[in-house]
């Protein structure tokens, strides 16, 4: 590559990434040379400013045609833009949470690290979302994962934090190995790591044996990626990690990391395996052969997540199982492989972003204040601070999928996808709705605590300004998308069902 | 004839021939070690104003080392009962085998080289790293606090200095465009890399001393504090193999320095009537002498100085050197 080609690339399409990496580097340097006793809070604002800047630059790129640079390794298409938007908004809000995260011990010295590790993790997620090459994809994935490992263990003096990080590393390492193993087979069969090339090469594959190998590769990658989104069979880490990690990190893992996980699943699965012929007359496309297995995993995830959540007393652990279940719902959208798949996943992730982030924002305030994560800390919240309780109630209702909230429309979209295919996925959708009803038990259990039970202490819960911003944004998002889902759906329609996904 | 051999398909016959040749080299190396040790003592004596060994085998003490070896061979071999027996036995072998293996790729002259492999330099660095494992294993298996401390220190030191070492040669690779040692030597036909890469050479040289565990960087076996470091529990021939490994590395490292920076077998200026092998031997001996010289004239460093020097001075310098080299190459070549 000579200088001319190098300069001929449209570097501007990487602007959001550049901004994030620049801010992350800047923050790490500032943090390094800052006095020990100085407050790190301004750094958080720099981080937020960087994320906002990145969002602005991304919005500026919205009209751009799908473009690839760096020999097709980086690709900005509708899919990338849409998912990056979720991640950026999510990370921005998590930063606001992190600035106001004040646990009883073990956080003071590492506040600076928090911000830039969060940004590098975000960078990994973004790179992953718009990569056009297995290697880039993998590097992005690992940038996200490794940053998250450290983030989970950031409270170095805290046992739970250590343990959660350790478990995260072990599980993450195993899943990485699985993904890589699968990818190595894909590479072996095609001799290329470029997604577009793989797409064309594999669609011409006819050899039965090789298709068999490909199916194994598919499973390895899928199982490995299911770790990222915390679905069965790799969900075991989630409760422990969610519980032990600092609350903003938990929020990050459950939102940005999950969105990234789904982004990579769609990228890899649809592009790499989307057109592989199965050698079978009836269902000529391999992925439709494997659909039932994905559906099985989705079903198992929903059942496991929702039933085990029933007996949790720790609020973060409960939310962990809830997020497993929610991932299962989104997986239903993937398993049904319908016309609406991408839209449904995107919309649900947006809804999930608002509702779950809101929940974590309030959880963070409550648990910081009391030092306990037991669900009983929410008792009488309505008496103590009615508005906070109402906001929390809205988020919980949205998670439960009650109409009028974004969560409901998201579920609607998923159902539509599940039913519109032929044959329709009646069983899967039924499991989904049945487990949703099961989830009422624990979601409304939280509401019971907040509204029906007497308060332990009558102290007011006051939201710091940063968290207040997050909560207000999330309420607006949750209710707004519940009542006017057209906003998001119209926004989505400009990508035309991500038709430029495969370039 | 050797050409034909190399071009023939690999077979057991080849294996036998190579084996014979390698044994010959081994003998040479053992000879070097024997007289290297003697030379070291003599040079030491000379520098310290005394005579050194002079009784055994004539007036210069020529048989002194041989006597030492025999003594070691006949010495009773003890393995402490608390030691981890299998590892204890294995450790000297792990330490020695790579030391000998690295010699396979060193080109002594354009003809006299055993294995001309494409990634010779990488091979050298990679294989030599294994020795560290042997040393740590020895320290660990002894189940002795001195030994363990020595082993850990050795490991810390060797890995710390390995980084400047590998970084410093990048300049050389940059100018040659190859990892093949023969290519590297041939690229120095006109000008030696010591002139193009003075900084690289300096870093390399210092790091190589540390890698060899020689004074001023001989912390792992610091007699006065750790008794003898990782091999405190070893005696007899097992101990001898650690020593042997050390001296074979001295040989190898001096050879590598010659190859990388001193133009290998290339003659100085017009003196090309003298065969390459002699030139190589001369340069090689010079390097060995310098190494000995340093050993006797410098005091041992403190542990903290040692580590911080490696990380805070050598590594940044080596990194900077890479870029200056790249820029020079970009601008002037």
């Amino acid at each position, binding site marked *: 590559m000579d200088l001319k080609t190098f300069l001929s690339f449209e570097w501007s399409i990487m602007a959001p990434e550049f901004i994030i990496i620049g801010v992350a580097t800047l923050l790490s340097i500032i943090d390094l040379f800052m006095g020990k006793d100085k407050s790190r809070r301004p750094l958080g604002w720099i981080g937020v400013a960087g994320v906002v800047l990145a969002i602005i630059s991304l919005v500026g790129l919205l009209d751009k045609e799908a473009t690839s640079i760096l020999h097709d390794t980086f690709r900005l298409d509708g899919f990338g833009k849409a998912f990056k938007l979720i991640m950026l908004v999510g990370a921005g809000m998590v930063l606001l949470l992190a600035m106001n995260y004040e646990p009883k011990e073990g956080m003071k010295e590492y506040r600076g690290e928090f911000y830039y590790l969060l940004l590098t993790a975000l960078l990994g997620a973004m790179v992953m979302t718009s990569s056009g090459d297995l290697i880039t994809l993998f590097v992005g994935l690992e940038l996200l994962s490794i940053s998250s490992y450290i983030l989970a263990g950031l409270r170095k003096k805290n046992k739970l934090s250590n343990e959660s990080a350790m478990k995260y590393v072990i599980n993450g390492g195993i899943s990485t190995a699985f993904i890589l193993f699968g990818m190595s087979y894909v590479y072996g069969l095609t001799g290329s790591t470029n997604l577009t090339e793989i797409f064309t090469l594999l669609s011409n594959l006819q050899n039965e044996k090789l298709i068999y190998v490909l199916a194994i590769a598919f499973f390895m990658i899928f199982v490995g990626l299911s770790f990222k989104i915390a679905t069965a069979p790799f969900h075991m880490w989630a409760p422990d990690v969610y519980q032990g990690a600092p609350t903003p990190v938990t929020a990050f893992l459950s939102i940005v990391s999950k969105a990234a996980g789904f982004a990579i699943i769609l990228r890899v699965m649809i592009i790499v395996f989307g057109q592989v012929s199965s050698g079978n007359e009836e269902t000529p496309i391999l992925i439709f052969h494997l659909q039932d297995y994905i559906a099985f995993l989705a079903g198992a995830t929903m059942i496991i997540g929702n039933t085990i959540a029933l007996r949790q007393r720790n609020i973060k652990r409960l939310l962990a199982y809830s997020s497993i279940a929610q991932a299962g719902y989104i997986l239903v959208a993937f398993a049904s492989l319908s016309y609406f798949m991408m839209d449904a996943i995107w919309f649900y992730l947006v809804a999930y972003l608002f509702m779950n982030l809101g929940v974590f924002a309030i959880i963070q305030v409550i648990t910081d204040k009391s030092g306990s994560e037991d669900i009983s800390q929410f008792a009488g919240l309505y008496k103590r601070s009615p508005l906070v309780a109402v906001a929390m109630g809205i988020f919980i209702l949205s998670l439960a999928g009650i109409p009028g909230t974004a969560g409901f429309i998201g579920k609607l979209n998923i159902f539509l996808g599940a*039913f519109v295919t032929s044959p329709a996925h009646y069983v899967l959708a039924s499991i989904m709705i049945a487990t949703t009803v099961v989830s009422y038990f624990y979601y409304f259990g939280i509401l019971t605590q907040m509204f029906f039970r007497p308060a332990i202490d009558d102290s007011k819960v006051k939201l710091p300004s940063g968290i207040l911003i997050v909560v207000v944004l999330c309420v607006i998002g949750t209710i707004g998308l519940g009542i006017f889902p057209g906003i998001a759906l119209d926004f989505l*329609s400009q990508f035309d069902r991500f038709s430029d996904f495969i370039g | 004839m050797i050409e034909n051999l190399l071009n023939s398909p690999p077979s057991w016959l080849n294996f036998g021939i190579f084996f014979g040749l390698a044994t010959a080299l081994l003998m040479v190396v053992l000879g070097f070690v024997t007289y290297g040790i003697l030379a070291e003592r003599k040079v030491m004596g000379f520098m310290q104003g005394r005579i050194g060994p002079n009784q055994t085998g004539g007036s210069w003490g020529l048989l002194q080392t041989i006597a030492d070896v025999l003594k070691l061979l006949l010495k009773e071999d003890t393995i402490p009962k608390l030691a981890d027996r299998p590892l204890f036995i294995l450790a000297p072998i792990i330490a020695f085998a790579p030391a000998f293996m690295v010699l396979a790729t060193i080109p002594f002259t354009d003809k006299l080289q055993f294995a001309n492999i494409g990634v010779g330099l990488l091979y050298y660095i990679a294989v030599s790293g294994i020795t560290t494992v042997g040393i740590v294993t020895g320290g660990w298996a002894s189940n002795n606090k001195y030994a363990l401390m020595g082993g850990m220190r050795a490991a810390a030191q060797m890995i710390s200095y390995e980084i400047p070492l590998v970084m410093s040669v990048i300049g050389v690779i940059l100018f040659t465009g190859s990892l093949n040692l023969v290519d590297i030597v041939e690229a120095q036909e006109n000008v030696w890399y010591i002139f193009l890469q003075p900084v690289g050479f300096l870093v390399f040289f210092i790091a190589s001393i540390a890698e060899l565990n020689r004074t001023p960087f001989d912390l792992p076996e610091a007699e006065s504090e750790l008794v003898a470091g990782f091999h405190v529990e070893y005696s007899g021939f097992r101990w001898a193999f650690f020593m042997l490994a050390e001296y074979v590395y001295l040989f190898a490292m001096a050879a590598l320095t010659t190859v990388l920076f001193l133009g290998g077998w290339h003659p100085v200026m017009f003196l090309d009537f003298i065969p390459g092998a002699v030139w190589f031997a001369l340069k090689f001996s010079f390097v060995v002498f310098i190494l000995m010289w340093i050993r006797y004239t410098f005091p041992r460093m403190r542990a903290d100085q040692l580590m911080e020097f490696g990380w805070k001075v050598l590594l940044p310098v080596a990194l900077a050197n890479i870029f200056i080299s790249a820029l020079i190459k970009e601008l002037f070549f």
Partner: protein
Amino acid sequence: MNESYLLSLLVFSPLLGIILLAFVPKVQEQTIKIVGFLATVPALLLSLFLYFSYRAGADLAQYTEKYNWFGFIKDGPFSVEYDLGINGFSLVMILLTAILSTLAAIASIHIKKEWKGYFMLFLLLELGMLGVFAAENLILFFIFFELTLIPMFFLIGKWGYFEKEKAAFSFLIYNGIGSAILLIVIMILFAKTGTTKISAITAILASPQGTVPTFGAITTELRYGLLIALMVAFGIKLPIFPLHSWMLRVHVQAPPAIVMLHSGILLKIGAFGLIRFGLGFFPEEFKSMAVLIAILGVINLLYGAFLAFIQDDFKMVLAYSSISHMGIVLIGLGSLNEAGIQGAIFQVISHGLISALMFFLIGVIYERVGTSMIGRLGGLAKVMPIAAGFLLTAAMASLGLPGMSGFVAEFMAFLGLFKEMPIIAAVGAIGIIMTAVYLLRAVLNVTYGKPNNTYENAFDMRPIEFVPVFVLLGLIVLIGVYPNVLSQPLQLVLDTIMIGLGG
């Protein structure tokens, strides 16, 4: 089509009250009560206006409202409209809702705490109920349907009696299952037809298969499956025999004003849905299951009656009597002729009025004497002669005394069934007698039985409490004497149903 905002105004008028209440300070109890009451009035006035203008011959179609809401495909199928409209049946139901809501607001004087939250939820509940009847779009219907769930959960769980939380949860879970099943049906229909407009779906389902393009085959099996699912979904709400246990708890534990609304309207949503969707979408299939429905009706009738006979708690008696009376609705539906269906609809409305009256009176008595156990009551006629007298009158209405609404409804329902299935009807008739027995036993015990209680604080009815009683009794008698007030508006709907049934 005229642009009219009347229906929106009607449905969302309680929202105004909610907003106003939000700004009223918690301590001003009197203001809250007045605002809460007044907020129910606009809906009442508007619905009365609609009723009388319809009686005067106005065309209801002019009130239809339709706006694009959101679409899963932009400008294509799979979009959802905001679509309100009424017919005679729903008009009557809206009127009933508005009247009962106003009366329940008056009855809410018995509530003891947290007026503000109570009235906000109360008005939200009213909004939901009004919306359910006005929705012309399945998704909209479902949203309003679920919207009733949440306020009910809180109203029961917070302002109920001793086992309120348990009652709230069982209400939530049963109805959650019901609405989940309903959602599945709605989404399947949506996915297959691409629309959620009720009239459009009716038209598509009515036309023979293959004549109208759909997005998936609607096979006969699917139709039966959907119908059964609908029956289960609405059967839970109604409640039909094996799915009724939640409703007992709610009736016993919820505050009286809420039970008025619950038994008066919420249960009727089940019947409404069954008629509107079950009968409206799948008339053919409904026909072939008529016997089953009639049998279920008879079982409900007898089961409710038997169990009501052995209850100690007056509220339980009324709860089982509700089950029993809902059996009559089913009997009417099972007959599938004009008289039967008209009877069913009459029963829906009549029972709405009667049970509201009964529960109001029970609430009055409970407030004075602190119990509703028949064994501990007795001789109320002496202490509270007026209340006892009204109670007796209401019981008479309930057991179908001629001249009151209950009689008309039961008479027509049985008339219809005797025409079609005389044997089943004969068995069912036993239930009518049972009704008289258990009601008289309970009421006579309470009014004239031996007083077991000292009734220290008992006083007779307050002036304000006369308003609901008079209004309800007046309506009951009006319908009983002059059924035309109902039958005339319903005629058009009945004709449509009969055409759907093929004559």
